[in-house]
């Protein structure tokens, strides 16, 4: 019988009770006494010089507290970029100033041009309409290839060009790489687009800045995945405030998917304006604003080449990518197409030579940054698509070709800097074949054909680098932050426990899974343990949640802190039982002396820690509270194999996903139900990218898909019932729980399987289609079939 508590059990998510009954506390639910509201006047053109801004009429409008323009922020810093990439020539990336409010030039539709703070939101909007802008339009730079042309208009006049960096990774020797291609028996080449996406969490961003004059303290309530990171960036780089005077609170957050990692102008604005106005200042994004102010994701244009020998062994891989940065460098933007992308290009395969070239490009579009998977989906998509194309060109079975080239011995040092500690790609592929019922595919295809539909089967593998990240390694690679995490375990006198964690839960179910670990270690009921997260005033300095890192990094810190608790508790128990602490055992919440029938309960020990009457005070401090910081020794490497089965209607080009199977290796698993949910959600987003979502700009830099009327989010009826299996488990070798992380896998591993399946379907129908760029909308599929 499965356990109903502790590690490996699937208790229902305790936080869902409040989310589903309207008792959540989201940032917009917070209202501060006397708060004013800000409305941002946003640019409706992509590129223009601001000749003048006349706010005089707006300032006299009813209810207006203060009107801000770029000039008000001349004395503060710009939004910083958290990662400095060194280019192929040893030069730093080009890094333009990223002002809080546009500073003489508008560089993307949605950029803040002015801000009106008023008693009510409607008054602020009314006043914003009275602001007079005198603009001179400049040519918009939208297309990346055009942006890199010699005579291209520049997004930033003070930079040398629109190139942020030109980066090479893996084998830097162009001639050696070319020689490998020259001597190949077969080369497969594929040009593709990884489509730009808008994260669209259900909860739009919100920020409330507060200032307390008496103590000179600030509080920022914000929709963030990492409140300590926001505090550090905003205080140290933007506003120049002492960190100890600033508290950042991210309460319940309704989804992030990466888009709430970054420090945004609106957060710094509300904090700054709270002092300037003498009032709390609140901003709630509308959905329309979210489309043009939340950082976008993906947007790569790639050419990938795979060389194979006569026996179909992969001998070399070369990839050239242009990655869109948008108009400014968002917090982790430059790391995504470089170190979160290039390092993954070996995939699950023992290709000996890998060369990755990435050019990052400034354009007059919304900044682009991490979105669920962040660089790893872009790597996986191109690699797994080119392998599939190679298999078709060679007449090889796509699964057999992959199996033949799998890495099978661990640890494995890739040609792109990573060391995979553990994995078993054969086992996950075996499991996939079973779960996906490949044996039954022929019969299902025949049935579809009877109904006039084309049925296709597509498979792909993935590897990701999660548990981000070893601080010393990422520091060498340009990270301007450490990526450890922290936890404080505070045991109360009566034995209940609050765990203060640096990770932030915004859909991941930490409030359920983290207590499972602590309760399991001590042997007490889970209901005795809660976690506290999302408040720099309460939790230790942690780095937040992204990169599938929470359980692997913060969970490890929590384990270390709990180990310290247990160690101290054993000393107290030893004192109470007049035994040596080396002989004390803890099981099911009872301390016993080995080989005797003596025991004391957890609650007796915790009470003693806080009521230390019978206590070794000369050797041991009273109390029971411990903190641990944990910096991982390596990344973790979740991996898996996914299979998608589609039907294509040849009359309309409409693709229907009939089956989707996932076999993942996440190492050890704390709560299998939550892991299922994480994979389901990731698959939904991956399928959304593959079939539906597209942030499309026109040549003037206007976002064409700027609302849900044109931006197609996946809905329940767009996805099938999934077959998800994670029984293949090769535990991580370097963290105490043996966990790898599961948050991004679904989004990383699913787009290539969908596209591979559609190509398979079309080719089964006699169409000579070898590639279609995502999203595979009905119109695009039909055009490809009839092209």
């Amino acid at each position, binding site marked *: 019988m499965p356990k109903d508590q502790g590690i490996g059990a699937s208790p229902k998510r305790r936080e869902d009770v409040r989310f589903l009954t309207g008792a959540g506390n989201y940032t917009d639910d917070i209202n501060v006494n006397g708060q004013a509201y800000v409305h941002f006047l946003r640019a409706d053109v992509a590129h223009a010089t601001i000749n003048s801004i006349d706010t005089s009429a707006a300032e006299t409008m009813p209810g207006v507290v203060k009107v801000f323009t770029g000039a008000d922020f001349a004395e503060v810093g710009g939004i910083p970029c958290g990662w400095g990439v060194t280019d192929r020539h040893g030069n730093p990336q080009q890094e333009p100033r990223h002002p809080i409010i546009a500073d003489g030039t508008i560089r993307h539709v949605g950029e803040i041009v002015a801000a009106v703070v008023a008693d009510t939101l409607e008054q602020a909007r009314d006043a914003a309409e009275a602001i007079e802008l005198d603009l001179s339009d400049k040519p918009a730079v939208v297309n990346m290839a055009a942006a890199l042309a010699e005579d291209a208009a520049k997004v930033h006049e003070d930079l040398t060009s629109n190139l942020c960096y030109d980066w090479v990774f893996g084998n830097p020797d162009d001639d050696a790489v070319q020689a490998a291609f020259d001597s190949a028996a077969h080369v497969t080449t594929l040009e593709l687009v990884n489509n730009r996406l808008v994260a669209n969490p259900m909860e739009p961003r919100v920020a409330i800045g507060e200032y307390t004059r008496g103590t000179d303290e600030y509080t920022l309530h914000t929709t963030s995945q990492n409140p300590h990171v926001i505090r550090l960036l905003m205080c140290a780089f933007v506003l120049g405030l002492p960190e100890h005077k600033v508290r950042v609170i991210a309460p319940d957050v309704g989804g992030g998917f990466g888009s709430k990692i970054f420090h945004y102008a609106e957060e710094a604005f509300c904090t700054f304006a709270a002092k300037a106005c003498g009032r709390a200042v609140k901003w709630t994004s509308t959905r329309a604003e979210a489309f043009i102010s939340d950082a976008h994701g993906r947007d790569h244009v790639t050419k990938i080449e795979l060389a194979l020998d006569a026996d179909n062994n992969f001998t070399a891989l070369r990839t050239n990518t242009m990655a869109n940065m948008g108009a400014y460098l968002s917090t982790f933007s430059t790391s995504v197409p470089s170190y979160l992308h290039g390092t993954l290009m070996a995939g699950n395969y023992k290709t000996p030579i890998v060369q990755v070239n990435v050019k990052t490009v400034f354009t007059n579009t919304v900044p682009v940054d991490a979105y669920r998977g962040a660089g790893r989906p872009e790597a996986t998509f191109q690699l797994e698509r080119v392998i599939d194309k190679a298999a078709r060109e060679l007449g090889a079975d796509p699964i057999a070709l992959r199996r033949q080239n799998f890495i099978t011995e661990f640890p494995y040092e890739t040609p792109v800097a990573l060391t995979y500690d553990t994995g078993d790609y054969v086992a996950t592929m075996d499991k996939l074949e079973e779960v996906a019922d490949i044996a039954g595919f022929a019969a299902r295809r025949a049935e579809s054909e009877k109904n006039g539909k084309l049925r296709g089967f597509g498979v792909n593998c993935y590897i990701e680098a999660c548990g981000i990240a070893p601080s010393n390694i990422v520091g060498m690679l340009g990270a301007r932050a450490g990526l450890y995490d922290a936890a404080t375990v505070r045991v109360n006198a009566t034995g209940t426990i609050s765990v203060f964690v640096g990770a932030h839960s915004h859909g991941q179910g930490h409030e359920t899974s983290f207590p499972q670990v602590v309760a399991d270690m001590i042997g007490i009921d889970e209901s005795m343990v809660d976690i506290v997260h999302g408040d720099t005033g309460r939790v230790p300095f942690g780095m937040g949640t992204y990169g599938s890192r929470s359980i692997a990094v913060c969970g490890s810190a929590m384990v270390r802190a709990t180990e310290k608790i247990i160690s101290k508790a054993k000393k107290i128990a030893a004192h109470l039982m007049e035994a040596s602490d080396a002989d004390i055992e803890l099981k099911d919440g009872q301390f016993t002396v080995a080989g005797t029938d003596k025991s004391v309960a957890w609650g007796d020990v915790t009470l003693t820690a806080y009521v230390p009457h019978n206590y070794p005070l000369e050797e041991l401090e009273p109390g029971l509270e411990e903190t641990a910081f944990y910096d991982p020794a390596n990344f973790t490497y979740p991996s898996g194999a996914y299979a998608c089965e589609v039907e294509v209607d040849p009359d309309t080009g409409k693709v229907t996903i009939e089956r989707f199977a996932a076999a993942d290796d996440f190492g050890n698993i704390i709560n299998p139900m939550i892991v299922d949910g994480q994979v389901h959600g990731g698959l939904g987003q991956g399928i959304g990218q593959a079939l539906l979502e597209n942030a499309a700009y026109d040549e003037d830099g206007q976002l064409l898909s700027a609302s849900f009327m044109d*931006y197609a989010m996946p809905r329940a009826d767009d996805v099938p019932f999934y077959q998800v299996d994670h029984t293949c488990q090769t535990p991580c070798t370097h963290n105490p729980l043996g966990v790898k992380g599961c948050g991004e896998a679904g989004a990383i591993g699913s787009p290539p399987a969908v596209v591979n399946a559609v190509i398979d379907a079309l080719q089964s129908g006699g169409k000579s289609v070898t590639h279609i760029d995502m999203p595979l909308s009905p119109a695009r599929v039909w055009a490809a079939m009839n092209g």
Partner: protein
Amino acid sequence: MYEFEFEKPSTVAEAVAALADEDAQALGGGQTLIPTLKQRLAMPSKLVSLTGIAQLKELSDNAGMLTIGGAVTHAEAAEAAAGPYPALADLASHIGDPAVRNRGTIGGSLANNDPAACYPAAALGSGATIVTSRREITADDYFRGLFETALEEGEIITAVRFPVPQKANYQKFEQPASRFALVGVFVAKYAAGVRVAVTGASEEGVFRWREAEAALDASFAPDALDGLSLDAGGMIGDLHGTKEYRAHLAAVVTRWAVAAAA
């Protein structure tokens, strides 16, 4: 939204009087107008709600003529049409989502004449009569292009009269994001002939596909459409499909509708 006056009259005459003010705007279920106001894309001086007028909520089914009041919601219309005119009921029950169907009205939809809306296809495909506060307008005369109709300032749709056909069906291929009709086709077979109305596809809004009607007059079967195609010129081309794709889809969807009706 901007400030506006609000009136909720109980008779058509009161509503007409209320709409006489400059920049007054009729409000049906508000499924288009309210979001437009929220985005500050319209600035009416006054909204005149039509949903309190009993006459506009009337439904009748007499001698092959189904009459639906202008303020009848899609959900109410679906229920009323289920017996007498199942194809119309089916169309009404697949507009938008439950919230839209419980608020949006047939009069509002036809007055707005969104080029991707479903009701215009039913009205034109059925040869319906649009009854207004001033006159009766045949569907053939009513639709004038994108968001353009024969309605004059202050004129209110009080009812729509649908002659019930022998056979009919509506099929739509949905735009992936909005789930409006990328192309929708209403096919109806009357004693006097077949009518085929296409929505979603044309830059001129809903239109009749005369060639298909003629072919289906001869034989009301999908095969009758073999070889027929629409000219891509004049079709809508956008993010969700080229002109050629829409022209192609219109033929495919017409075939579906005929197959379902026959």
